[in-house]
């Protein structure tokens, strides 16, 4: 691990400690809980839930999640290209810098248009 990440690691532990320690300490400091069993029912505006929430969900959410996976991986592919881009331009490699990524974006665009036509992007 490069040394610059050591403070970051300690910082993330400290950050994790903040909510955990506060939750545990105030568990003993706050007044105890009172009330009957109804208090521990799910709050659904006073109506007792009739069905379980571990049921079926609108399938569009799965499609959205899949599309997100694909597109966000594409974003990650763009990051190193973006970082190196100005270096290539400085070396007068403009065509080398632009064309492969345009092919990539073009393929992405074709897939996007296909999804659009199929209606995969509508959540209604």
């Amino acid at each position: 691990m490069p040394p610059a990440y050591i403070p970051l690691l300690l910082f993330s532990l400290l950050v994790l400690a903040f909510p955990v320690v506060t939750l545990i300490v105030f568990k003993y400091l706050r007044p105890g809980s009172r009330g009957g069993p109804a208090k521990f029912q799910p709050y659904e505006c006073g109506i007792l839930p009739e069905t379980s929430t571990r049921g079926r969900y609108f399938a569009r959410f799965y499609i959205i999640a899949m599309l997100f996976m694909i597109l966000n991986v594409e974003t990650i592919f763009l990051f190193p290209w973006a970082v190196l881009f100005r270096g290539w331009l400085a070396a007068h490699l403009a065509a080398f810098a632009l064309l492969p990524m345009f092919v990539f974006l073009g393929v992405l665009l074709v897939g996007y248009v296909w999804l659009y036509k199929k209606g995969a992007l509508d959540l209604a």
Partner: protein
Amino acid sequence: MSPMLHSILAFVQTWWVELLCAVLIVLVVPLAASYIVLVERKVMADMQARLGPMRVGPHGLLQPIADALKLLIKEDLIPDNADQFIFWLAPVLSMTAVLTSMGAVAIGPWFQVARDINIGLLFVVGVGALGPFGIVLGGWASNNHYSIIGALRSTAQLISYETAAGFALVSGFLLAGTLNVRAIVETQRTDQAWYVFLAPVGFFTYLIASIAETNRVPFDLPEAESELVAGYMTEYSGFRWSLYFLAEYANMIVVASVGTTLFLGGWLRPFSNVRWLAGLDAAPTLLLAAGGAYCVFRAGKQPARVQSMFMWAVAFGCFVVAVIFTLALPFSHLPLERMHDGLYGAFWFLLKVSAYIYIFMWLRFTLPRFRFDQLMRLGWHILIPLALVNVADVGIALALSSEFGINRWVAMVITTAATLGAAMLLLHWNDKYSAAASAALLADSSIAEDTHAG
């Protein structure tokens, strides 16, 4: 001295600045987040022609502290049906993800936990992206219909707009050529332009996406009170609820910091290359002195002695910080002079972040809420393709100016016009398309009977 103690001492000696920053961030960011809540209530009150919180402390200045104390000792319920461990874990996860991503943000050139890590903003975006896990887990673990619908909506929204935000950030990285926070800001100094002017479409895409990512109006569907009680937070009470709330407001600070670093010149003073505008360096001193003078003026008018003492204390604090800023000016020849960059950088950075967050509040009290399908359509049908086209156009603008010697501003104007043309086309297609979609939706009434339709 034992060898272990020795090595710990050596470690602290090497990293004390970073460790100090780490402790300060953990202490200050939750406090700052709760004060943003107060500012928001005050701004809301101002826009609605009323006073807002006035009771706790002068002008309600101690309200966040009273709220925090109340939430800490409030009854802490875990419903019987809930998944106990995940219910406990989810808000902690949300908070940890957001605060950890603050670690790579640089508040001024000196104040940063992870100095010079080369992945910089990628770390912020990547760790920040763990936040939705807290939301979806919390909604699932609550075992409540409102919670799960809120969590699903929220996750769908966050991941949709995260893609758009990612593409928008790429257009900034193209200009900066690095992910390192410090280097990004320094490149903007040498380029003599904030990237909001070279990639305006990228900035506005990021602005919209960042509002959606922080679940704010007009994209606050997950918490749509009138429909879903409180969305994924319905079952949460007391400190757990406030963890979610703090995470949301701390996330505003994070997205505003990313936007400021990449597009608004980070900690650079406006016109940092213009010598004759160096007088702008007096702005922090003058602003603080004016704030202190106002507090002195108001101190005599407070109804209670405690309140006027508090006002005096605030005024004193303002004057002390103003003096520190003055002593840090380069002509003072004091040891403090070495802190000039850090202090003034932090001032300008925080000013820009505040302006960015003010836009969030302004929009909140101006716009009505989107419907869920409209929200998803804006994200998937308009923002994502627009951001993609913008990445290509920024690339072309850079290539034009380096290969053919075209002035970069001319290249920027041409490509931005092209991007905006693409945006108009997208809007046009989308209008035609959505009219057809609404007609189909009205024809198919069976959807309304599906309770989980989101």
